[in-house]
């Protein structure tokens, strides 16, 4: 269990690597599938790298260990980032990533048990925090006081009333083994959160619902670690904790930052190459894709009918 208060520079470098390759792999997966959520995957890259790099107590070789920490990706559309992080951390072979959005492959949104490390079936926004609270309650009923439940939410997702039902019940049941993290990237699917359905001030809302509120820069590895250090070890006072992580949607790609167009579009192979170049520039690297990317084709209904009639 690494020190989160003063994390070792080597550890932070490992986090940096993980976050970079998560972004790189997201580009590969989304481009190959012709579908996926790029912006919200990129805004969560550092958070996931830190979580699976040492914040979460979880062993890739024993992902079912009852004493593990639980991680629930409520904003399950960021699945490419989670899949990539899990693969990079050794939960399953990198190759398996490339079944993303294929038959018998990894779903566009996470499905519980579909691959090692996935705890929760999601995709319908607003449902994850309740599930996480139920998980936290279960741990307490089992007198497992060592494990924590961490739930990652989107800011637009906080429009959903169920988030506030869950927030109210977690405080009522004094679930101080529950940590919610808001990927506060200020953008939802079709525009700025403040334009479409403002959730501000998030700090006051969670405080009024009985939570301890912490904040950090969601792309600053040391800040992330420090926030979790406080959340995991200092705040065991009968209140659930929320970390408001200020992030940038599409972080790392000038073209995609704060740009809702890239919430859910897939780049063409050519665009993807350009994006990788941008990433290399942003992070001072010279990485390549693991393969030549090809865009998929879906002939849809027409292809199916025409093929059969041509028999």
């Amino acid at each position, binding site marked *: 269990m690494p020190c989160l208060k003063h994390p070792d520079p080597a550890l932070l470098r490992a986090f940096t690597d993980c976050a970079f390759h998560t972004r790189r792999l997201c580009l590969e997966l989304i481009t190959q599938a012709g579908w996926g959520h790029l912006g919200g995957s990129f805004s969560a890259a550092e958070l996931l790298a830190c979580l699976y790099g040492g914040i979460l107590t979880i062993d890739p070789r024993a992902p079912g260990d009852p004493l593990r920490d639980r991680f629930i990706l409520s904003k399950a559309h960021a699945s490419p980032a989670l899949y990539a992080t899990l693969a990079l951390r050794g939960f399953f072979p990198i190759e398996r990533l490339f079944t993303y959005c294929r038959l018998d492959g990894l779903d566009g949104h996470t499905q*519980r048990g579909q691959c090692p490390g996935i705890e929760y079936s999601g995709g*319908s926004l*607003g*449902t994850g925090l*309740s*599930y996480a609270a*139920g*998980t936290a309650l*279960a741990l307490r*009923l089992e007198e497992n006081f060592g494990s924590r439940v961490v739930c990652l939410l989107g800011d637009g997702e906080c429009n959903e009333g169920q988030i506030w039902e869950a927030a109210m019940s977690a405080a009522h049941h004094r679930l101080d083994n529950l940590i919610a993290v808001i990927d506060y990237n200020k953008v939802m699917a079709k525009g700025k959160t403040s334009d479409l359905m403002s959730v501000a001030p998030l700090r006051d809302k969670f405080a009024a619902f009985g939570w301890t509120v912490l904040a950090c820069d969601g792309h600053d590895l040391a800040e992330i670690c420090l926030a979790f250090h406080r959340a995991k070890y200092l705040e065991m006072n009968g209140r659930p904790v929320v970390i408001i992580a200020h992030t940038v949607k599409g972080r790392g790609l000038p073209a995609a930052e704060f740009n809702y167009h890239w919430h859910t579009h897939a780049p063409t192979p050519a665009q993807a190459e350009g994006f990788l170049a941008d990433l290399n520039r942003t992070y001072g690297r010279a990485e390549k894709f693991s393969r030549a990317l090809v865009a998929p084709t879906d002939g849809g209904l027409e292809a199916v009918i025409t093929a059969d009639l041509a028999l």
Partner: protein
Amino acid sequence: MKLSYSKIPLREIFGETLVELGAAHPRLLVLDADLNTSSRTVLFKQRYPDRFVQCGIAEANLFGLAAGLAAQGFTVFPSTFAAFATRKALDQVYVNIAYPQLDVKIAGSYCGMTATECGPSHNCAEDLAVMRSLPHVKVCDPGDNHELRAMMHAMMVTPGPVYFRVAKVNAPELFGADHKFEFGRGHLLREGRDVALVGTGFMTAIALGAAELLDREGISAAVAHLPSIKPIDEQLIGKLARETGALLTIENHRIHGGLGGAVAEVTARDYPVHVEAMGLGDTVFEAAPLQDLLRHYELTPCAMAARARALVQRKRRASAA
């Protein structure tokens, strides 16, 4: 035939059986949404306060919490009125529970028209249709106290999601204390040649009454009880179709997509015969006592006998032609 009626309402049996199961299964949890003295989960609460979780008036969260708890290996009974179990949290039941096939047993209290005076918002005539449309969810409606109890024991040894109804009614005694419940298995309560009356839940008692009336006029009506709507007893439906050639279903539910629909899907596929459905139509509920609702919606032995009589005539005309 003289039916006797239990002095103990179904919901009381629900509460008592939860306590019984709670004793045998330490990992059984009961979740409530501010209705425990109505649903009678209060009996479990008093006996096992540490395994009773109050979730307040927040049904989406109720089922989300249930999913999270079940994912850690608990068997969870979230409980609220059928109307809210069906309409307030369908997404949570579907995405978080049905798909991952978690061990959650959903009790729908005050189902059908048994919320009586509460009116449209609390009565629920679509839960069977809605729950039947979800993957992996077993759906049932017990006919009497013994069957509810047997059903709850059966679901404890059957992993995965179940939706079952707990009507607010004093049920007629259809079965004995030794009654066995099996998912997918129905019961032939009365043999008959001319028509088969098929019921689910406590409505089967009305079918028995109708059969009695038909018998007096020389019409031989079989009566079958299908407590398990999904999976449904296709063998029994086939036998009834072959032997009587005309089925009349009755349910405490709308006639779209419930028991009548499930039976018609089977007969149409395998044994094309006449199937008519009795239940609620495409209408809003009145708020009134149960006896008035049953008569108002023509869900009585006399009404069912009349429908059966007409059905038998149509069948005979059809085969004559």
